[in-house]
């Protein structure tokens, strides 16, 4: 089962990289949903031979919250502000990818000297991959100017932390996990509202001041 854990770790990082290089918000949200789906299956792979009710519960809750609810709230948010494409990232897409690759290499390099407390994790890829995902999510937050994409970056960062938490699955009481999930959910919910308001303000501004000037870039 280590192969499956490895594969899901690598897919997680790869999807974060794809999101980083994407220019459409709808596609970014869909890929985020896919990433969360892959992550939510991880407990199955980790405890393939001794599945408990707790595993199944965690899988289902994660899937519903991260892979279904969070993306649909984001979709709802962008539909409300009728914003379809990322307009001006601070960093170009090409340099984003190159920097992302460097970050991944850095994460692997750093985690070679990190030792986890407790038992050995199921796969030695979990730690570097979670670090890479956190860094990539952070980079999306920093280099994208739109509020929705920043929320997405935050969610990807959370996915990285989730990946890290999964490796400490056995020592972690279920309540803490639920707390984390609820935290994310509330954060997305609040941010969706915030995004909505901010973008409505922007819309008003644009409509009154420089609609014609912006014309072609939309």
């Amino acid at each position, binding site marked *: 089962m280590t192969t499956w854990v490895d*594969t899901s770790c690598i897919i997680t990082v*790869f999807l974060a990289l794809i999101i980083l290089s994407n220019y459409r918000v709808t596609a970014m949200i869909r890929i985020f949903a896919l990433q969360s789906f892959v992550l939510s299956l991880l407990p199955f792979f980790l405890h393939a031979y001794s599945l408990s009710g707790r595993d199944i519960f965690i899988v289902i809750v994660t899937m519903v919250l991260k892979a279904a609810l969070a993306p649909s709230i984001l979709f709802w948010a962008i539909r409300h502000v009728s914003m379809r494409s990322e307009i001006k990232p601070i960093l170009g897409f090409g340099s984003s*990818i190159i920097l992302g*690759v460097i970050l*991944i*290499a850095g994460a692997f390099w750093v985690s070679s000297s990190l030792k986890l407390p407790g038992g050995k994790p199921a796969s030695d890829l979990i730690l570097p991959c979670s670090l890479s995902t956190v860094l990539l999510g952070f980079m999306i937050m920093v280099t994208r100017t739109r509020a929705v994409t920043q929320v997405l970056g935050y969610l990807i960062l959370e996915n990285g932390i989730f990946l890290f938490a999964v490796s400490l699955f056995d020592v972690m009481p279920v309540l803490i996990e639920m707390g984390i999930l609820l935290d994310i959910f509330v954060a997305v919910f609040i941010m969706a509202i915030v995004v909505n308001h901010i973008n409505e303000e922007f819309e008003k501004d644009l409509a009154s001041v420089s609609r014609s000037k912006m014309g072609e870039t939309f």
Partner: protein
Amino acid sequence: MFIVFSILSHWLIVLALSPLFAGIIAKIKAFFAGKKGPSYFQLYFDLRRLFMKNCVYSRSTTWVFRFAPIVNLAAVLVLSLIIPLGSFKAPVHFSGDILLAAYVLGLARFFMIIAALDTSSSFEGMGASREAFFSCLSEMVLFMNFITLAFLTHSISLSTMIGADIPMSWKMAGTVLLLVVGSLFIVLLTENSRIPVDDPDTHLELTMIHEVMLLDHSGVDLGFMLYASAIKLFIFAGILVPIVYPVQTGIPLLDTLIFLGGMLGLSIVIGVVESTMARLRLNRVRNLLLIAFALAFFGFVVKMWKG
């Protein structure tokens, strides 16, 4: 004696089957478009027709233009000797032949580009500059993949890198190979001007790359160029298939059949990808290639991490 036989049988397979490979892809695309499509053997008919014709040369061209198709076909034929087909070792193999493979490819491309520039048509020059740009990115990706494969199999000869040692590597580092396969597939689509990068079917569009460089070639020359690009596609597929599907039985005939089955599967995959994807805008092709590079580099990092 054996080497002569091996070279001849290698060439026989490559020369005889590469137009069919392109034909299957065209048929799959026609199926997706809801058309009957040209016959599987259309490229054979085209080549036969072209080989019976004379060449027409523009007065502004020089010997470079006449030289290019011959160099192109010769380079791909030499390249096909280095690439192992299925589980067989290539007729020519030595330590470090990956470099030769990459540079023979580069030679073919170089002559194609200067022949396009030699016609002094601005249209062809545009295609040439695009080809040069994309191929220099895809060569970087190709080398990154070769480096990862070399670390996996502890050899720098294509015959052991993608032929013999791959089944072992899937057990040890399947995830790394998954990344390599994804990245090599993008390289295959780019190098052979398939759809997300370039449309092989259009002849007069501003975004095309490969076809535009063939516009001034005619007759036998055009036949050489078309044959060379069909063989190139076959060779790239031949690199990819043994990595994806490393089944070795030890019986030569059965191995050949397995390899050909894999090639058939890959041609269907290429056809489906080409039918379901739209061509990327020209300035986004660079991003696609950078993602392929990221995949390859990520595979390399994971390989180094796993040790």
